[in-house]
């Protein structure tokens, strides 16, 4: 945003302060910011989707520009037909037709996700756990045992059809501790990320915005 106009910077700063004011309590300034945000961003994405999906993907796909050498992709019409069916919702008589694209998407998502997650989450994660337990150093050995035990006990915690009692219950307890370590670690590691954002904002307010403010008046 190095080359943003002074007015742009001024507005950006005011909006930033408006959002921060929510921390104290809900107030008219925040409400205005929220309203602008909703309107502008909804339209932003509408335009972005319009050009990237409808124009670039669909239109240029079925009617390739001359000289690009690409063949028209007739399959894309399928998407457009489903899209039009979606609009049938607005016509009460045939609004049940809009369930077809919905059914398509739900089925497709279920099928796609099932495979993607099965391969990337289950298979790959199991595979990466298959490391030699005995390593060169004591610490490395401890580490690989930790990973194997943590993975197995964690899975035991997720068991639905067996009561967490006795040895099984003990293992499940160890499992939930592993999950808690994971959560704690993620939380702690994330703090830095969140602080950076605030630091970024404050830096903007103190430098670009304040300078700009000074120049405007």
């Amino acid at each position: 945003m190095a080359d943003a106009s002074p007015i742009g910077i001024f507005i950006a700063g005011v909006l930033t302060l408006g959002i921060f004011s929510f921390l104290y309590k809900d107030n008219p300034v925040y409400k205005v910011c929220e309203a602008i945000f909703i309107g502008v961003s909804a339209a932003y994405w509408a335009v972005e989707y319009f050009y990237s999906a409808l124009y670039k993907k669909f239109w240029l796909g079925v009617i390739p520009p001359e000289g690009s050498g690409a063949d028209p992709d007739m399959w894309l019409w399928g998407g457009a037909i489903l899209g039009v069916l979606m609009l049938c919702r607005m016509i009460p008589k045939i609004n049940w037709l809009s369930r077809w694209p919905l059914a398509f998407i739900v089925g497709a998502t279920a099928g796609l996700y099932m495979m993607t997650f099965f391969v990337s989450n289950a298979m790959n994660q199991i595979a990466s756990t298959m490391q030699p337990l005995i390593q060169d150093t004591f610490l490395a050995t401890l580490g690989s045992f930790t990973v194997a035990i943590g993975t197995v006990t964690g899975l035991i915690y997720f068991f639905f059809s067996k009561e967490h009692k006795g040895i099984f219950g003990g293992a499940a307890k160890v499992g939930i501790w592993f999950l808690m370590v994971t959560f704690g670690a993620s939380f702690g590691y994330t703090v830095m990320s969140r602080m950076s954002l605030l630091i970024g904002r404050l830096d903007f307010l103190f430098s670009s915005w304040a300078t700009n403010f000074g120049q405007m008046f």
Partner: protein
Amino acid sequence: MSRLSRLSISRKTFLTSLLSLLVFAAYSAPLLAQDSDISVTDSTSAELEGAPAAPTNVLAVDHKYDIGEAVDVSWDLSFDDTAGMRNVAGYIIYRSVAGSAEFDSIGAVFSLTSSFADIGLTRGETYQYSVSSYTLSGQVSEPIVSAEVTTEREWFDWDEVWVFILLVLIGGSVMYFIYHARKGKQMFLRKIAGLQAVEEAIGRATEMGRPILFIPGIHDMDDVQTIAGMTILAKVAKQVAEYESRIFVPTRASLAMTAARETVREAYMTAGRVDAYRADDIYYVTDEQFGYVAAVNGIMTRDKPATCFYLGAFFAESLILAETGNSIGAIQIAGTAQPAQLPFFVAACDYTLIGEELFAASAYLSGEAKQLGSLKGQDVGKVIAMAAVLIGAVLATLGSEEGMNIETFRGAFHGIWSVFGGGQ
């Protein structure tokens, strides 16, 4: 930046690219000029003074497990393409359709590269390839010709056979338990606190005369977590309808809004209160992640829902939502399969469904024998996974002494395979 300076930059970009185009054309002209007249029998190029040594051992094989549109060409590097020599700038790959002696150049790669994937071929056609090395000054070696290769289409990807077997095992056990779940026969299920609290939370909102807020995540219907959220929404909305309470469902995606309306309407109908259904309580806000969050924060502070559900895919907003919800004293039940966000929900919400529990929730809430049966199938999957982890680790430990390198799942399974006497 003003419009004027922007224009001057684009002109500069244009000129630069034009210039570089010319340079490129001039540089590659000697190479391209030879394309048309290079044929197998033409060995004059080898006699060119200073022509580099040709690559050796040119192989062309049909690309495995594809639709018959690709051939993998590989070769051993030219002698002149080794450390110290390095006057080979790269390789040119030529192709001829079977029977024809006309080899057309189809691509070039840099030095020290010994393979090329030719894609976009015709299935069932026979091709022949040849490879030459070339130098920066434009000398091209004699082309070395490969054997003929015919592209084939395979109908099963044998690289994926282990995925297939495991999927059949786990999917099969889920289906087995779905269809063998007998009605009336009570299956044991451990308690999930978050789900037991659902009814109470809805009841509380009704007593307080305040609405319920349901966020089905911030992804669209192309995320299975959103679908999981919708299946839970169905159960929640039904109870809301029975209790004559009110539910708000703001969504970040238009499709999700449509699906949520269908879901809630159906739930109200099942509860026999279709007249109480208000489509406008389920609405699209904006596709912008934080715009959506700003709006939901506003809804929370103004409408003060007594119960908030966050079930679906969540990202950074998880904590903003949960902390704002906490500040208005709402009971909060969250669930997501985004590992990065679970810590925040665990910290800030009353109940959190962790990963798998989110997908099990609608089965739990429905109480139907078939749905619950699928959970038992999942447990079988867990047993398989645990066994694979343990056996795999043990095998890897035993194998590591012989220098067996187990890096991928397939590798591991081939390891098991070899232990049992197969393969190797």
